[in-house]
């Protein structure tokens, strides 16, 4: 056999299938080649058909999943857009229920939250008022001291009746009160509130000069009003400015604004704050509201930076400060040192 095989090596270029030169090997090769196949071509056709079917099935499933996913995704995005849109509308035209959840507004405002329809005034940033709850006299005037050395004077309803600050800035001023006090006051306010208003204040901000800007919902219309002690600085209803000549038409709106801002109106609430003030009339009204005189009573009053004399009687320093603040609010600037404001003539 080896001899034959060596011949094959010599004839390397004449290799033929099944002819090795070894008879046993050739026979074995022939047997191997005649053995049946483990897989016939019909089975292969079956395998390929199955693969095609499963391919189609997989393709259908894949397409269905893609389509379903696309539909689901568009539904989710649609829902999110709807929610976002609703939220935007709620900010522009807030409803009572939605306003309860509205916390973040622009930088200078009072944050409001509501638990039972009443609003709570909460503090913001570093401007905090600590209430000393000092009763001044029988007229129940309460003095509050701000951390910025400003003094606010409130009446029993927490209406701010004076503020000694003089510089107007755009800085945010927020009031902080104890929850009980706020609830109490606002509950009272809401009882008094006109039905034309929604019970919830939307935004409200205070400025150093004692003015306040707020947004209200009045007769289902958005209202933006800026007031100070002398009256209305500006009024926008439905984003349209109302001329001062027509302020008188909105007496209930102005009264509500003063009530909510807790600012003492020194003249009529609908007075044009930019008009030349009648300081004497304003001071008279302030004295009447403080029960220092009665309405229509003749009196004499003299106010300097160091003294306040009513009917020849010196008023205590707290009332003097309060009245100096009234003067400042009415006039627009503080009484100059050495200056004197007189109503009537001291006997």
């Amino acid at each position, binding site marked *: *056999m*080896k001899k034959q*095989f060596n011949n*094959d*090596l010599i004839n*390397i*270029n004449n*290799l033929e*299938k*099944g002819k*090795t*030169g*070894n008879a*046993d*090997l050739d*026979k*074995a*090769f022939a*047997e*191997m*080649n*005649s*053995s*049946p*196949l*483990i*897989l016939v*071509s019909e089975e*292969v*056709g079956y*395998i*390929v058909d199955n*693969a095609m079917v499963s391919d189609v099935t997989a393709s259908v499933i894949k397409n269905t999943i893609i389509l379903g996913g696309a539909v689901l995704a568009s539904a989710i995005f649609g829902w999110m857009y709807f929610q976002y849109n609703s939220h935007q509308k709620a900010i522009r035209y807030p409803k009572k229920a939605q306003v309860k959840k509205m916390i973040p507004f622009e930088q200078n405002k009072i944050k409001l939250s509501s638990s039972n329809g009443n609003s709570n005034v909460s503090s913001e940033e570093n401007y905090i008022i600590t209430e000393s709850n000092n009763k001044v006299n029988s007229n129940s005037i309460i003095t509050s001291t701000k951390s910025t050395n400003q003094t606010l004077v409130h009446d029993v309803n927490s209406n701010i009746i004076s503020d000694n600050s003089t510089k107007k800035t755009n800085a945010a001023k927020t009031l902080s009160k104890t929850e009980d006090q706020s609830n109490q006051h606002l509950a009272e306010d809401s009882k008094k509130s006109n039905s034309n208003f929604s019970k919830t204040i939307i935004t409200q901000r205070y400025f150093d000069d004692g003015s306040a800007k707020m947004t209200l919902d009045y007769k289902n219309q958005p209202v933006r009003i800026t007031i100070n002690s002398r009256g209305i600085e500006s009024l926008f209803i439905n984003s349209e400015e109302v001329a001062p000549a027509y302020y008188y038409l909105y007496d209930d709106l102005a009264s509500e604004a003063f009530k909510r801002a807790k600012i003492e109106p020194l003249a009529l609430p609908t007075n044009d704050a930019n008009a030349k003030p009648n300081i004497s009339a304003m001071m008279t009204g302030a004295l009447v509201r403080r029960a220092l005189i009665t309405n229509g009573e003749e009196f004499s009053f003299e106010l300097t930076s160091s003294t306040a004399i009513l009917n020849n009687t010196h008023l205590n320093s707290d009332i003097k400060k309060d009245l100096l603040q009234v003067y400042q609010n009415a006039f627009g600037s503080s009484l100059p040192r050495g200056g004197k404001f007189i109503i009537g003539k001291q006997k």
Partner: protein
Amino acid sequence: MSLYNPLHERLVRFVQTIVWDKEEARDIVSETILASYENFDKVKHHEAFLYYLFTIAKRKMNRRYVQQKRQTPWTDELNDKAEDSSPDALKQLQVKELKDAISHLPEKYREPLVLFEFSGLTIKEIAKLTQLTENGVKSRLVRARQQLSQILDGSLHEKTI
């Protein structure tokens, strides 16, 4: 399928000669066909389908062989699984011995031998498939035959003794 049908027997013989286990061989052939079917678009020329098909089969077998090598070595039990439907038991024994002898050949000799003797590929085709020169293929074929004869002679000698 028109491309595949002429190559069917060649492919199956190639696989069933190298792989002992019948079911294993069937699996490899099926996987090869499916793989070639899935990536049929990659075949640019019809002439290349032969090489494409056998290359896939080679890779599948190598992968299985490596896996099996790690898991279970070739044993008599596995050898017994190699069925052959030859009517004659002697023929069956010859086939079994031949398969056994082929399995003992080094890889570089086994593949050209099987492709040439059982799958019926030409020297040129084998050279292209194995990326060898034609003379290299011939050389390996001769050495494969030589070693196979020695193995078979040895086994016959052992049996005689």
